[in-house]
C-alpha cells in the first residue's frame, strides 16, 4: 500500500526502519566518520523511524560509555556544530553496544538477542545493515558467525532485508580480492553487498556524470577526435599520519590508485548509460576497466613510475621522509607515489593517452581531472591568411597551430570544487596576441555552504538499498586484474633509488619524463 502523503514531497520514498550494526565500533572510522554521518542524517530528519545503531567490538563498554565516546566523536568531527542537544538525546537513546570477540559464536547469539529486542521495541522488523569497519582478514569469521546465528536474511525474503557495507581495501591483489568476494558471496548475495569507496559519495564526482550527460555540448567532443590526452591527479600533502603499519602493506597503488583513481577514470571515460540505475551505470563503468590496455612486461618500466618521499618541507616546515615515519622500515621500498600512462582501447578513446598520478607529501592537496583538447587543426590566424597591415602582421604572436594553447576542461574534485574551462582569447590591442584565459565555476561561489559528507550520502543510499554509488564485485576484480601485474612486475624489480622525491614537491623526475616524452606536461595545480 502506497503512502499517499509522500507523493510530491522532496523525500518521495521512505526507507524501511533497520538496525545498523557496526563491527569494529571502537575504531577511528566509527568515531570520525560513521557516527557523525548518522547523527547528521538524524539532524536532517533522514533516518527512518525507529532506526537503532548497535556497535560491536572487543573492548568492554556499557551503552552509556559507548554513547559518551560517540558524543565526543560527533562533537569533534560532525560538520554541524555544536551538538544539537535535543536531537543528540534522541539519537543517543538509539545507540547500543555489544562487546565480545568476533571469533566467538556465543557473542553473535547475544547480538541476535539484542537485535530482536530492538525489533520488538522499535519496529525494525528484522531489517539489518552491517557495516564492517574491520580489517578484511576478519571478514570471514564475522560472515560465518552472522550466518550461523541466523542474522542474514534470504535476499528473496520480502519481509526483511540484510545488507552489508564493506570498507576498502577490497583485497591486496586479484587473488585476494577474488577470495574476499567469494567469501562474501558464501553468505551474501551480490545485491546485499555495498562496497564503499567514499570518493563516489562526493558531490563533485557525481557532478562529472551531470556535466557529461546533462549537457549536450560536451559529449560530442568527449572522444579521440577532439581530445589529445587526459590527466588525473590525486595528490595529498599529508604523509602517512601514523598509519605507517597499514601503509607498509598497501602503498599508493593499493591505497589510492586501485580504487579512488580508477573510479575517477571510470566516470570520466564511461559511455552514457541507458539509464541512471545501479546496474546500467556499473555496467558502463566496468567496461572502461575491461578496455584498459594491460601494462605488462617491459611496459611496466616504460609506462609506470613509482616514488617514495624523502625528507623535505611542507609550507616552510621540515617534514620527515617516509622511511623516518613511525612503524615504517628504514629500508622500506613501499611506493608513496605512482604515475602511469594508460590507454583505454575502445572506439571512443583509442590512442588517447591518459596520464594519472597519485601520491603523498606532494606540493598541494588537490584532486583534479583535466581533459586536454587537441590543437586547432590549422593556423587560421597565421599571417598569410590574414589581410592585415604590415605593422599588424609583424606583431602577430601566433605563427602556427601548435603554438596556440589548446583548450582544457578541468574538473576539480577537491579542494575548491568546480569546473574550469581554459581557452584562448585575444589580448586587447592592435596585435593579434592570444592568451589563455579561464572560465571558472566553483561550487562554493555559486551554491555556498557545505553539502552532505560523502559518508552521509552513501549510508543513506545503503538504507534505501541503492547500490549505484558502490563498487560491484566484477568492478573490483577488473581493477585488480589491471593493477596486479604491475605490482608483480614492481616486486620483481625493486626500485633503483628510494626515496626519489622530496616531501613538498610534485614527485620524482621520472614522472615528468613520462609525460614530457610526448611533448606534453603535467598541469600546474
Amino acid at each position: 500500500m502506497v503512502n499517499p502523503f509522500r507523493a510530491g514531497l522532496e523525500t518521495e520514498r521512505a526507507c524501511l526502519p533497520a538496525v545498523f550494526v557496526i563491527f569494529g565500533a571502537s575504531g577511528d572510522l566509527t568515531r570520525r566518520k560513521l557516527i557523525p554521518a548518522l547523527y547528521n542524517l538524524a539532524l536532517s530528519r533522514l533516518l527512518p523511524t525507529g532506526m537503532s545503531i548497535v556497535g560491536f567490538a572487543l573492548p568492554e563498554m556499557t551503552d552509556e560509555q559507548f554513547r559518551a565516546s560517540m558524543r565526543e566523536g560527533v562533537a569533534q568531527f560532525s560538520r554541524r556544530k555544536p551538538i544539537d542537544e535535543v536531537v543528540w538525546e534522541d539519537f543517543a537513546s538509539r545507540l547500543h553496544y555489544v562487546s565480545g570477540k568476533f571469533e566467538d559464536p556465543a557473542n553473535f547469539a547475544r547480538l541476535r538477542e539484542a537485535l530482536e529486542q530492538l525489533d520488538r521495541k522499535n519496529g525494525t522488523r528484522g531489517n539489518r545493515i552491517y557495516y564492517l569497519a574491520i580489517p578484511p582478514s576478519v571478514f570471514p569469521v564475522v560472515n560465518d558467525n552472522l550466518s550461523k546465528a541466523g542474522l542474514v536474511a534470504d535476499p528473496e525474503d520480502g519481509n526483511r532485508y540484510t545488507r552489508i557495507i564493506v570498507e576498502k581495501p577490497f583485497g591486496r591483489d586479484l587473488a585476494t580480492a577474488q577470495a574476499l568476494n567469494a567469501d562474501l558471496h558464501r553468505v551474501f548475495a551480490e545485491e546485499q553487498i555495498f562496497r564503499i569507496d567514499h570518493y563516489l559519495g562526493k558531490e563533485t564526482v557525481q557532478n562529472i556524470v551531470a556535466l557529461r550527460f546533462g549537457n549536450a555540448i560536451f559529449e560530442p567532443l568527449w572522444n579521440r577526435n577532439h581530445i589529445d590526452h587526459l590527466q588525473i591527479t590525486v595528490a595529498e600533502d599529508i604523509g602517512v599520519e601514523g598509519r605507517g603499519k597499514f601503509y607498509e602493506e598497501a602503498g599508493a597503488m593499493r591505497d589510492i590508485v586501485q580504487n579512488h583513481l580508477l573510479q575517477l577514470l571510470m566516470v570520466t571515460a564511461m559511455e552514457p548509460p541507458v539509464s541512471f540505475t545501479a546496474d546500467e551505470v556499473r555496467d558502463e563503468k566496468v567496461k572502461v576497466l575491461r578496455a584498459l590496455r594491460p601494462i605488462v612486461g617491459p611496459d611496466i618500466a616504460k609506462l609506470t613510475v613509482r616514488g617514495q618521499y624523502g625528507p623535505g618541507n611542507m609550507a616552510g616546515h621540515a617534514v620527515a621522509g617516509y622511511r623516518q615515519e613511525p612503524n615504517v622500515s628504514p629500508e622500506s621500498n613501499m611506493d608513496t607515489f605512482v604515475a602511469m600512462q594508460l590507454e583505454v582501447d575502445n572506439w571512443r578513446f583509442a590512442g588517447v593517452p591518459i596520464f594519472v598520478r597519485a601520491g603523498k607529501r606532494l606540493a598541494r592537496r588537490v584532486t583534479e581531472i583535466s581533459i586536454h583538447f587537441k590543437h586547432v587543426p590549422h593556423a587560421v590566424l597565421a599571417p598569410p591568411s590574414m589581410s592585415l597591415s604590415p605593422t599588424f602582421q609583424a606583431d602577430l604572436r601566433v605563427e602556427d597551430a601548435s603554438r596556440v594553447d589548446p583548450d582544457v576542461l578541468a574538473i576539480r574534485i577537491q579542494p575548491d570544487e568546480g569546473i574550469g574551462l581554459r581557452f584562448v582569447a585575444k589580448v586587447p590591442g592592435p596585435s593579434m596576441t592570444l592568451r589563455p584565459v579561464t572560465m571558472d565555476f566553483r561550487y562554493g561561489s555559486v551554491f555556498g555552504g557545505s553539502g552532505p559528507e560523502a559518508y552521509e550520502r552513501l549510508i543513506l543510499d545503503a538504507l534505501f538499498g541503492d547500490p549505484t554509488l558502490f563498487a560491484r564485485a566484477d568492478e573490483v576484480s577488473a581493477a585488480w586484474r589491471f593493477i596486479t601485474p604491475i605490482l608483480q612486475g614492481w616486486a620483481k624489480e625493486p626500485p633503483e633509488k628510494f626515496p626519489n622525491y622530496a616531501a613538498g614537491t610534485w614527485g620524482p623526475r621520472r614522472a615528468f619524463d613520462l609525460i614530457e616524452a610526448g611533448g606534453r606536461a603535467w598541469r600546474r595545480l
Partner: protein
Amino acid sequence: MKIPLEGVERAITKLWEEEATKSSAPRLELMTVVALVSDARLLDRAKKAVNDLVCAQAARTIVAVSLPGGEAEITAEAALHRRSPDSPARGDAIVLEATGAGREWLPENVDRLALPDLPVCIWWVGDLPDHDDLFDRLLGIADIVVVNSCEMDLRDLEKLDGLVSRSRDRFALSDLTWIRLRPLQELIARFFDDEAATACLSSLSRVHVTFTPRENEQDAASTQAGLLFGWIVHVLGLPTDPAGVRWHRESTWSEASLGGIVFRFDREDRPEVPCGSLLGVHFECESARFAIERQKDDPDAFRWSREVPGVAAPPQTFRVAIHDESTLLIRCLERPKHDRLLEASLRAGSRAVRPVAPRLSSRPGAG
C-alpha cells in the same frame, strides 16, 4: 551613492574590475532576484534577505522600492554583495528607488537590468494587494514568483490560487510559508510509511490542528494551517465543493466537516513562535492515533508519536528550525520549479475555506 539608471551596468562592471584586483572571486550568477518593496519600511528587511540569499546562491538582486509623491523618477544604487565587508564579492546588488509616477516605469527597467538568459525571480515583499498593476506587469518577465502567505489573510489563498491559474505555467509560484510547512509535511508523511498505518487512513475521523494566530486575527485558521488543510484534503481526495463543506465557528476554534472527516482548528498564543505557525497536528483513526507537537521548552523541536495496533514505533524528537525569511528564501530558490503539490494544495485549501474566508470582492454588498 545614487546614480542614474543608465549608469548601473557600467558601475557594476567597474566594481567587478576593482574586485578582481583584490580577490579571485569569480563573477558567477545563477539568476536575477527582484524584491518588490511596496512599503519603504520593508526596505531594510528586503535588502538583508537578498544579501543573505546571495551568500548562498550567487545572483544579481534588484530591490525596487516606490515612494509616493515627488517627481516621476527612478534612481539607482549599485554595489556588490558580500558576506562581510572583507569577504569576496558574491553578486550584484542594485537598488531602484522610484518616486511619483516613476513607479510605473519599474517593470521595463527591471527587465532591462535582469541578467540575460537566466531565470528571473520576482519576490513580493509583504502583503500582496488585491490588485496591483505593477505586480501584474512584472509577472510578464518572471520565471518564479515568491510570496509569503503568512503576511496575508486566509481569504488570500484564493488570490494565490488565482495567480497560479493566471500563470498558465509561464512562471512557478512559491510561498515562503509553504517552505516552512515542508518539514512538517515530512513528519506527517512519516506516520504512514508502513502498510499497517496507511491502512488506518480509511478510518480517519478527525484531524486536529493547533496554530498561533496573528495579532487581532479573526480568521478560522492561519494561512499555514489553511495550506496544511488544503494539502491533506488534496492527498485524501476529499470533496471541496461548497455544498460538501460544513463549518462551525467559535471564538477560539473552528471546525470544518468534509468527506466524513472533522478538521478542527484551535488557536493558541505562543509568543516565541512566529504568528500563523503550527503548534500541533493530530490524526485520529478508529484504533490509531498520530501526533506531532511543538515542544513547550524548545519551539524548534517537534515530538512525533503514533499508536498503531501491532506496530512498534518509539516517539521521536525532531528539530524543525524556525527559519527566518532569508533562510526560507534560500530554501525556496535552491531548486526552483513548478510545485504541483503547492498548486493542488492551494486549490483544495482555498475552496475548502471559502465559506469562512470569502474574497472581499465577492462578499455580498462589497463595492
